[in-house]
């Protein structure tokens, strides 16, 4: 990819005395636009929630907000893993299928105990990530294609273990792990808390650990990361395992919430929502730059907007689709324009 190098920013130091004021103003404007483009999702989220609460009475009700957060938590957890992959310069199209695999496996093994059900589902999801990561990192095949094959192949596997989609394994009787989905703490559903914990851990790993630094370095410039002696291949492999595990966790929570009985096609196109959330959150698809907070805001924004359309405008699902896609386009176009203002001269 021939992405424009953001490194060619000129130093913000004022060059000559008579241009000092102008330069400083320009630097301030640049800092402002970069702040907006980096934290735009958070700002827009706050704005949209405030406007929504004011204009649509049913939106601001605690029950409704709780439901929005609960609905967002499943894509949210997937998007957290996706953030790592994208910052590392890759992409994971397989998450929807991996999510489905974990959903089905955790329901299938529920009769053998909660621990086994959760363990097997996570193991399967982690393995999917590991295999893809190894192929991408060791064989140097493009992530887009490898995970595209993953999307197809793992979905095939889901159909295979569900007898071509005819079995809908259910959790019979009460299982401890159901509380993962149905429980609540301070009136907020457990999946929401789990999502917040995942994002907190994700933030810490990305910003405060050597592994997180490697992820950013590899995504920013793989060649340079190699020359610096960073474990490039291991980092690339691990991010796909992380993404697989996140998709798996999300699938387990879905089964826990619903008690199983899911269709084999569950999670179809989740990869698109997760990627959209990450991109809206300000993480660049070219790699190297991104933020967990942004992704969290991006996911919430997607679901808040959907909810507002349903609550406020009472539009049918087709128009919702148009609005979701249109919203994504508006956000990414604004981001592209703003980040270019803040960064390099246009080529």
């Amino acid at each position, binding site marked *: 990819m*021939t992405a424009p190098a953001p490194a060619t920013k000129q130093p913000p130091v004022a060059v000559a005395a008579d241009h000092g004021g102008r330069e400083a103003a320009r630097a301030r404007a640049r800092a402002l636009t970069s702040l907006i483009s980096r934290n735009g999702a958070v700002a827009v989220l706050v704005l949209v929630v405030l406007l929504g609460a004011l204009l649509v009475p049913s939106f601001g009700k605690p029950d409704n907000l709780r439901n929005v957060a609960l609905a967002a938590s499943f894509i949210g957890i997937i998007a957290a893993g996706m953030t790592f992959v994208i910052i590392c310069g890759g992409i994971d199209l397989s998450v929807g299928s991996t999510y489905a695999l974990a959903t089905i496996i955790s329901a299938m093994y529920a009769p053998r105990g909660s621990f086994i059900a959760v363990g097997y589902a996570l193991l399967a999801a982690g393995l999917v990530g590991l295999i893809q990561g190894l192929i991408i990192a060791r064989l140097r095949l493009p992530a887009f294609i490898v995970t595209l094959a993953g999307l197809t192949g793992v979905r095939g596997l889901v159909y295979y273990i569900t007898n071509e989609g005819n079995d809908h394994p259910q959790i019979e009787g009460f299982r401890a792990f159901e509380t993962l989905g149905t429980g609540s703490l301070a009136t907020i559903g457990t999946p929401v808390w789990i999502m917040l914990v995942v994002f907190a851990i994700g933030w810490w790993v990305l910003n405060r650990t050597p592994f997180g630094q490697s992820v950013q370095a590899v995504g920013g410039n793989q060649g340079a990361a190699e020359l610096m002696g960073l474990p490039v291949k291991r980092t690339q492999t691990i991010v796909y395992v992380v993404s697989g595990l996140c998709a798996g966790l999300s699938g387990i929570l879905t089964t826990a919430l619903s008690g199983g009985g899911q269709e084999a096609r569950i999670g179809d196109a989740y990869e698109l929502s997760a990627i959209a959330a990450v991109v809206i959150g300000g993480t660049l698809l070219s790699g190297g730059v991104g933020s967990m907070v942004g992704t969290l805001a991006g996911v919430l924004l997607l679901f808040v907007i959907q909810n507002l359309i349903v609550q406020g405008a009472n539009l049918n699902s087709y128009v919702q689709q148009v609005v979701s896609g249109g919203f994504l386009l508006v956000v990414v176009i604004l981001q592209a324009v703003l980040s270019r203002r803040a960064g390099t001269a246009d080529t």
Partner: protein
Amino acid sequence: MTTLAANLRDRTAIAAWTREHGVYLALLVLVVFNAIATPNFLTVDTVQLLFSQVPPVIIVSLGMALVIGTGGVDLSVGSIMAIASAVLAKFVTGGSPIGVAMLAAVAAGLLVGVFNGLVVAIARVQPIVATLGVLVAGRGIALVITGGALVELFVPVFKDIRLGKFLGIPYVMIVAALLAVAVSFLVRRTAFGYRLLAVGGNRRASVLAGLPVRRTLVVVYAISGTLAAVAGVIATARLRASDPSYIGLLMELTAITAVVVGGTSLTGGRVRILGTVTGAILIQLLETTLVSHNAPDSVARMVEALIIIAAVYIQRPARSSR
């Protein structure tokens, strides 16, 4: 020593040959397998069936190959097919002549393609995200146009599109072949083709060399949108109805697979048209083969995944060239 060196040279030569021609080899293997293992495979009927099924995939893949040649990707092709189908239905049920309806459908695809191109070239949004937005919104637009329902269409011309043959070859296959020749000519023999490859190879250098990069990108996405719309019209004629929630579904993945299996690299700067056409035929034949051997859908998907990985593995660039 000399034999070792010669042996080594031979082996790299074989590797290079399979890298270049892997897709033709794979198609040959599949045909031979079918000739042996599938009863009644080597008949005119089989070929005619294949030639009536594969054209939409070929046509969409041609546009996709051009987009991928510029280093981009077009995820919106499936939704464009749906939009074209919906527009076609709207015009036909509105009483327009079928020719006008088809033109309107193709024009709709052209418009969406131009929009994609503008977002990618002028706003400089990454192609995956730009066309992802259109993938989501586009199918919604198609559903809004028809009101979400399947619209049955009784148009005599559709029967010709479905069943018409010239010298035993289905019309739609002839159209696909002509389009392939045209796109191939465009890439190899025109200044536009060279610009396209230059942009895909190195956008910055193309800008510095004074090439009209933006215009080139817009035209490429416009071509992709137009071709997708043509495929949408054919798919509608085959279905005898417009079903926007079904037509073109997951076509973007099939087309990308055909292009990549055909030996075009996702990094851009190179386009292989014959490879793309062969890739599309390979995928369709693979599906037909699995169906005729009663392989369940689940197994078919897993096999397809393995084929994709194997194809890109065989064609991966040699390590020394990186």
